[in-house]
């Protein structure tokens, strides 16, 4: 197991240390968050705790990345 894989495993086991919102709150705020990101604004300030959640939840991260990519595609 390479170092970066081990670090990723540690990250998955211990998760984000910062306060985070849950999956349902993430879903509720996702559209506002990605539009702020796409506009270059401080999305994390508007929706505190969403970024740590994306670091801890691969499923919500995938859906965030897809929504951002989709609206950027237009």
């Amino acid at each position, binding site marked *: 197991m390479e170092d970066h894989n081990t670090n990723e495993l540690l990250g998955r086991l211990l998760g984000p240390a910062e306060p985070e919102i849950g999956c349902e709150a993430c879903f509720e705020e996702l559209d506002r968050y990605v539009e702020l990101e796409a506009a270059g604004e401080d999305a994390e300030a508007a929706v505190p705790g969403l970024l740590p959640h994306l670091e801890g939840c691969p*499923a919500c991260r995938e859906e965030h990345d897809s929504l951002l990519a989709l609206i950027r595609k237009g």
Partner: protein
Amino acid sequence: MSATTATVGVGMRSSPVAPRAVLDPESQELLEALKSSGRVYDDACARLHELLLRAARFEVARRWRGLAAGEADVIATEAADDALLAVLRRLDDFRGLSKFTTWAYKFALYEAAVKVRKHAWRDRELPVEEDVLGALHGGLPGPEEDVEMRERLGMIAAAMDSVLTPHQRRVLVALAVNGVPIDVLAERLSTTRGALYKTLHDARAKLRSHLEETS
């Protein structure tokens, strides 16, 4: 997680409350049409379904290139159908803090992503916990400088046995070690994404706290 509920796990940051905003003209027009009846409503539903199908196809293509074209389109269409129902059920929840299309897209992406994850695991059993935990108990190959990392993983593995409940340990191993998608695990355990993530969050917090106390 159901796309039709909104609850926040205990011990986690509460959902931020945002002010209601003024809708952009395009969102306003589509929203009003979806709240009307007759031909206007039917046309609006058809337009919305087209948008949702576009988003669902986008997600299916991103997540699983190995799907046959026909199979991928079946999944995308089912996702768009389910997303249409979810959006119509939740129209009154739209706060106008984004474009209506962005708000609607997330339902289609969610439905498509969940279906792809479940499809990929449809014939697979969940991995056995103990087989994988061997890697955490010192099975990591590597040079001398990896000793510290191996010791840390060993401490985590021991803490998983000593401080977590059996359910927390099972969820953590499945999601963090074995890479089982959270929606697949939720389905197999007859629970929701949100409930499982709360369990994962609590397990991680216990581990971090234990490591801080013992290090």
